[in-house]
């Protein structure tokens, strides 16, 4: 490809976008709208899985030991549980610690509390066990309950199952939304490019008649697709960024219990991803639509 050709192709691309301003604007807007939806879907998915993870990470098995357990035995049981498969962490709350914690919430001192309670500490030793896989909390709890020295376990029976089902659904809905809109975006863009090629079929026909090579015919459309996709992607990432910022601020002040993702790296990746996706869609769309025209 000579320098003359490159100059000509760039000029043609600019001309064609100026000549069909409405089609160019329509293409850009289609890319923008689809990518805005795609961007928000990705953020929704990120939040859904973040929410699911944060709910799940709160799942733990409270293991209460028998009241006659000595501090040495507590240590033995702790290391025993630590060694079990599927256990992520074990934290000990000794009966003395439990009493102090309780005292703090009641506002009294430890000695006066013990006196008040009739000279004995009624709290059992507690081991807080986290499972490495939240889905296996129930199985882990069953295993822990039969260990010697364990009085009883509590892990929010019933509540856990419902929560896990809910988070699973949250993930699936997020994935489905992203998938559906990705497909819709590609279809819309390829229709737009086809219209663009159709409006210039006469020009393409003449180019081919006077002996322009296929790549020469293809380049201006590819560059046009890339440019329009780039503009659409940039607009989309701007809208998604601003919109998400505004939305997350609103949620944080009104629905404080919802964990909102605020990850700058993720935002950068999404912005870059949207721009690249726009360019890829534009280029692939125009390439595919042209293939049929060029074959004749």
């Amino acid at each position: 490809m000579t320098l003359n050709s490159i100059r000509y192709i760039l000029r043609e691309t600019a001309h064609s976008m100026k000549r069909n301003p409405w089609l160019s604007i329509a293409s850009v807007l289609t890319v923008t709208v689809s990518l805005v939806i795609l961007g928000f879907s990705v953020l929704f998915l990120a939040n859904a899985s973040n929410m699911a993870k944060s709910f799940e990470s709160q799942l733990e098995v409270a293991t209460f030991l028998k009241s006659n357990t000595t501090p040495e035995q507590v240590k033995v049981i702790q290391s025993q549980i630590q060694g079990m498969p599927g256990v992520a962490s074990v934290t000990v709350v000794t009966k003395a610690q439990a009493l102090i914690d309780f005292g703090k919430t009641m506002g009294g001192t430890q000695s006066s509390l013990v006196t008040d309670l009739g000279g004995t500490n009624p709290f059992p030793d507690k081991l807080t066990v986290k499972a490495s896989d939240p889905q296996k909390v129930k199985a882990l709890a069953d295993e822990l309950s039969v260990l010697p020295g364990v009085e009883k376990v509590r892990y929010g029976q019933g509540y856990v199952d419902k929560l896990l089902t809910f988070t699973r659904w949250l993930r699936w809905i997020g994935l489905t939304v992203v998938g559906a809109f990705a497909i819709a975006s590609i279809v819309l863009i390829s229709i737009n490019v086809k219209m663009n090629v159709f409006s210039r079929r006469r020009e393409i026909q003449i180019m081919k008649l006077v002996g322009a090579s296929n790549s020469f015919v293809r380049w201006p459309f590819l560059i046009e697709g890339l440019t329009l996709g780039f503009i659409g992607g940039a607009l989309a990432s701007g809208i998604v960024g601003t919109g998400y910022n505004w939305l997350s601020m609103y949620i944080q002040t009104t629905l404080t219990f919802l964990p909102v993702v605020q990850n700058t790296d993720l935002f950068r990746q999404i912005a870059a991803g949207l721009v690249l996706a726009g360019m890829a869609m534009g280029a692939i769309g125009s390439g595919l639509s042209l293939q049929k025209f060029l074959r004749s």
Partner: protein
Amino acid sequence: MIELTNVSKTYPNGARALVDVNLKIGKGEFVFLVGPSGAGKSTLIKLFYRDETPTRGQVQINGKNLVRMKEREVPYLRRSIGVVFQDFKLLPNKTVFENVAFALEVIGVSKNEVKTRTHATLELVGLANKENAFPHELSGGEQQRVCVARAVINNPALLVADEPTGNLDPETAWEIMDLLFSINKRGTTVIMGTHARAIVDKMQKRVIAIENGRVARDEEIGGYGYDT
């Protein structure tokens, strides 16, 4: 220069446009293709610039086999063949100059050369003073001159015209014929499909008549030969 051997063309819908056509056309000839509408003239003309390929038989131009030719070689073939259409096929939003220069630009000719050659070619077809006009501002004859200029700007060895005077009044038609004739005199082979009886009878050139997809008549110095 051009040789068709046992060429048949059947379209996918079953229509038999050409049946066992054998033809030889020499360098520098001027040939009229005549025959009723739908007889296969246009299909035959399309074979010359490889807009169509035959379903059977061989087409050779300047020693190149157009049937076995690879798709990516076609652009280079087309650069040595000029095509003129009944409906001119000009780009409406380009000026006369741009329409003609287009044929050079898309094959990567330098800007200066495009300028010089386009000016010279427009001079040749008598449109030097209309360079900046748009096609809709021109008469039919002038538009056809632009189309001819675009077809010959690459100095093609072969000029193919499908009813180039079909949309023009008789007087303008003769102007276009004079132009094609002068191009032929410079050594370019010209093949022209036409229904214009007066032109064919007057020019006294080779006439090939196509009927029902077959060569019905091939005379060195012929006439139109049909009642209209």
